[in-house]
C-alpha cells in the first residue's frame, strides 16, 4: 500500500481534455467582454450569443467527464 497511487488514469485524461474547452470558454467570454466594452448597448444581443458559444464549448468538457466515468 505504501507508495502506491490508486485511482483511474481516466481522470488524468479528463484533466488534460478539460484544457481545451477551458481555453475556448475563456476566449468566448473575452470576446463578449470586449464587445460589451466597445458597445454597451449591444449587451442583450451579445449575451445570448456568448452563452450559446459557452454551452457548445462546454459540451466538449462535459462529454469528457462523461467518458471518464463510463470508460473505466
Amino acid at each position, binding site marked *: 500500500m*505504501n507508495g502506491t497511487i490508486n485511482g483511474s488514469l481516466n481522470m488524468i485524461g479528463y484533466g488534460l481534455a478539460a484544457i481545451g474547452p477551458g481555453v475556448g470558454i475563456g476566449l468566448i467570454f473575452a470576446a463578449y467582454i470586449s464587445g460589451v466594452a466597445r458597445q454597451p448597448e449591444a449587451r442583450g444581443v451579445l449575451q*445570448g450569443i456568448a452563452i450559446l458559444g459557452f*454551452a457548445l464549448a462546454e*459540451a466538449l468538457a*462535459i462529454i469528457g467527464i*462523461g467518458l471518464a466515468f463510463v470508460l473505466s
Partner: protein
Amino acid sequence: MHRAGNGDALHLVNVAQAAGGEPFHAPGPGDFEFPPLFGFFTKPMLIVVLAALFVGIGFYLAARRASLVPSKGQFLGEGVYGFVRNSIVGDTIGLRDGLKFVPYLVTLFSFIAVLNLSGILPVLQFPATSRIAIPLFLALISWVIYNYIGIKRHGFVGYFKAMMFPPGLPKPIYVLLAPLELLSTVIIRPITLTLRLTLNMFAGHLVLLVCILGGEYLLVEKGGVFAALSVVPFAFSIVLTFFEAFVQVLQAYVFVLLSALYIAGALADEH
C-alpha cells in the same frame, strides 16, 4: 522503481492513515444511487413528481386570478413567461412563428430549473436531473418536436435537403458537410443536450459532496487541529452552493435556448 517520497498528495494520505481513524472515502457515482423509498419509487422520482406538481399548481395559481395589479405569484409567473417569450423565443425563432412554442418552452424551463434547484434545497438536496433518464427524456421531446416541425414545414425530402445541403457553397464541401450535418442534427444534438444537463448537475453535486463530506470528515472523524481546518471546506461549500444555484438556472436557460434554436433552425426557410 524506487517509490519513496512520491509526491505531496500521497504523503498526506499516508499521514491521514497513520493518524488513526478510517481513511476518507471520496464521494463518487455511487452517491447518486438511492435505495427505493417504497416499491420501485426512489428519491429522484419523488423529486420529479414534486417538481411537476409545483410547476403545474404554481402556474395554475399564478394565472387563476389574473388582475391588472399583479399579486406576487402572478408577478413571478408572468416574469418567467415573459423572460422565455421575449429573450429566448423572440431572439431565436421570432414571435411570429415562435409564439406557439412558448408554452412548451416555458414549461421546459421552469421544470428543469425546479429539478435542478432541488440540488440545493434543504431536505431534497439532490438534483434529479443528474440521473440521465430525466434529461434524456426531455431532450427526446425536443428532438421529436423540432424534427416534426421541420418535416411539416419543408416536407420530408425538403427538410433533409435544407439541413444537409445549405445553398451557396462550393460542391466538394458537401461531401464533408452533408454527413456531418445529418449526424449533428439527428444524433448528436439530443445526446449533447442530455449530457450537458446531466453532467453539469452531476459534477456540481459531486463538488458539493466533496466539500461537505470532507469538512464533516475533518470535524467529526479527525478532530483536534483538523477540526479547526474544517472551516475551510465548509466555507467553500457555502460559496459553491451559491455558484451551483447560478449554474442550475443557467443550465435550464441553456437547455431551453438550444431547444429554441433547434426549432428555429428547423423552421428557417432557404435563403
